[in-house]
């Protein structure tokens, strides 16, 4: 009977560790969805304004930082005329803690990129 308890205990611990590590696979995917949503909003503003100002770049950087991104690089078009192409390229690192072993957590980083092109709707008089 004691051997059964030990086996049961070890099995429970193993299943919990497995469950946690599997759930943690979703973390970077969820972060990428957040990044896409934030960058999408910025791109819509760019379409209206014909590009991205320095303030808007700072706002985008702060919004991404709040979601846990760092080493953020933003390349965007500026002062684009009506009907011309605008582009937004955002590269950032997402750092997160992940269970890599039975009882070991490590900080991992993943590079994520958002790259989209659209057309400007800004009418210059």
């Amino acid at each position, binding site marked *: 009977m004691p051997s*059964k308890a030990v086996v049961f205990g070890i*099995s429970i611990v193993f*299943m919990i560790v*497995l469950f946690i590590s599997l759930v943690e696979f979703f973390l970077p*995917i969820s972060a990428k*969805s957040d990044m896409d949503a934030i960058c999408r909003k910025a791109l819509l503003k760019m*379409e209206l304004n014909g590009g991205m100002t320095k303030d808007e770049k700072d706002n985008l950087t702060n919004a991404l930082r709040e979601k846990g991104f760092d080493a953020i690089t933003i390349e965007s078009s500026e002062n684009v005329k*009506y009907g011309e192409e605008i582009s937004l390229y955002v590269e950032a690192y997402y750092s997160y803690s992940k269970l890599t072993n039975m009882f070991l957590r490590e900080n991992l980083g993943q590079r994520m990129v958002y790259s989209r092109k*659209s*057309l400007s709707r800004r009418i210059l008089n």
Partner: protein
Amino acid sequence: MYKEKKYFIRINNKNLNSLKGSSVADILIIASIILFVFLPIFCALMERYMVFSKSQIIRDAIDVANLSLYYAIETETLGKGFVSFNEDDLMQIYKKMLSKNLLLDAEMNPTDNSIIGSEVRIESIMIYTDGFPSVCPFGTVITNPAVHSYIIVPIKPVFFKDIISALSGKEYTELKLHIDSDIPVNN
């Protein structure tokens, strides 16, 4: 007949009793649960989530392509109080923006690093400029100038590639995406 059945149950009970307390059996049961129940369910969930994430990225690209059709508006007609489009430009602009954002070539086939599996098919693009309220083929009520598009996008499955292709007869999962985007005519 009845006696035989009783005897059979008795033997089974005896066998079960002899297994009581076997840790090896417990380990086997738990390992089987993990291997045949836990992991497949997780993989199926993960697959669904990845398809959902990919569909969000593709929807975003289709929405951008829809909005880009704004550039095909004939500006001369705007002052007369209605919206009309240059139909020659429509498909050209649409394909250009879609292929740039989804990393496709001119034939709408995926290039390197594209999340798309095979050729993207544009099934329909409809532009609503008057006669509101109107209803798109998928039932969405349209009250403003808008673009309706319906696109079939094949994507590569991550897990269960063989099972999916055996069940569906196709190498890729086909996402049928329908997007209606309002055209921003007042900015």
